[in-house]
């Protein structure tokens, strides 16, 4: 009964995001438990700095509030934050529309030569990177 109540109280942010009846829920947004454990932190900035700056991973995410896939590509200079193209835009499920490959070419919304500039420098729709990631599904860290 408690489990059913818990499931009923989950807030859907995008219906059928992964498939028919397979929704994207608010509790799936932002950093996962695994990233928090790896970074040994609950602080978004510290997790970002661990995964993207220290380990050096590329990051791709789907920002719910403007229905856009973004990628932060750290493999080369300048580091680019870009809109990722939808590889299969005709797919009925948003999750399947973009591979989350940050190598893909796309509109660059921010660039810098030092990953430490990313956290404070990136703004999407006047929102900070922290605000954006809190409202995003992280789809790639590699």
């Amino acid at each position, binding site marked *: 009964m408690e489990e059913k109540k818990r499931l009923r109280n989950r807030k859907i942010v995008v219906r059928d995001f*992964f*498939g028919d009846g*397979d929704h994207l829920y608010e509790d*799936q947004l932002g950093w*996962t*438990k*695994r990233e928090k454990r790896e970074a040994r932190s609950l602080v978004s900035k510290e997790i970002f700095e*661990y995964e993207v700056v*220290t*380990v*050096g*991973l590329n990051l791709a995410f789907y920002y719910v509030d403007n229905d856009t896939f973004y990628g932060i590509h*750290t*493999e*080369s*200079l*300048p*580091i680019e934050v870009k809109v990722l193209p939808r590889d299969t835009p005709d797919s009925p*499920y948003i*999750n*399947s529309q973009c591979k*989350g490959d940050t*190598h893909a070419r796309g509109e660059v919304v921010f660039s810098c*030569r030092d*990953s430490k500039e990313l956290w404070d420098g990136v703004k999407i729709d006047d929102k900070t990177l922290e605000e954006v990631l809190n409202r995003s*599904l*992280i*789809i*790639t*860290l*590699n």
Partner: protein
Amino acid sequence: MGGNGSYSKEFGGVKPQDRTHYETEYKIEGHKVLVLQENPSHDKIIMNSNSRNPIYLFASADKKTGKLTISGIGIYKNNKLVESIDLKFDSNGNVLPFSKTEDGSHSHNWFEVAPGIIGRKSYDKSNHKPIKQKYQKLIDKIVDFNKKGKIWKKRKD
């Protein structure tokens, strides 16, 4: 690491949201084909291995058909990722060659960036490398595997 069988079923096994990957029933040249993108929220490279010096082949599975596509290779030494290969394909499923503009297949080295932390030297052009010739035979077999349209049937825990 979260792979199949690494936790006792008596303790409930590995929760889906905690998994890093799933093992498929497939191997190429003895190397396991792993699905990374089963968890809908994640495609994350595996930084450590249970085996000492394995090579893992990273695949994604089409959500509708279950068709597997291998697009990455991880090479591990002493349980740590030391090299990764990103494979890019053309519309016919053939591997694109290395390109300095990053459109092609390439490899990266990984090492200890801080005590106990494996990472790569990001934004280092010298760490965007051509793939070593010794992996060519394996890559040819990966291309064949992808073209055969192998289906992944997820094992229930």
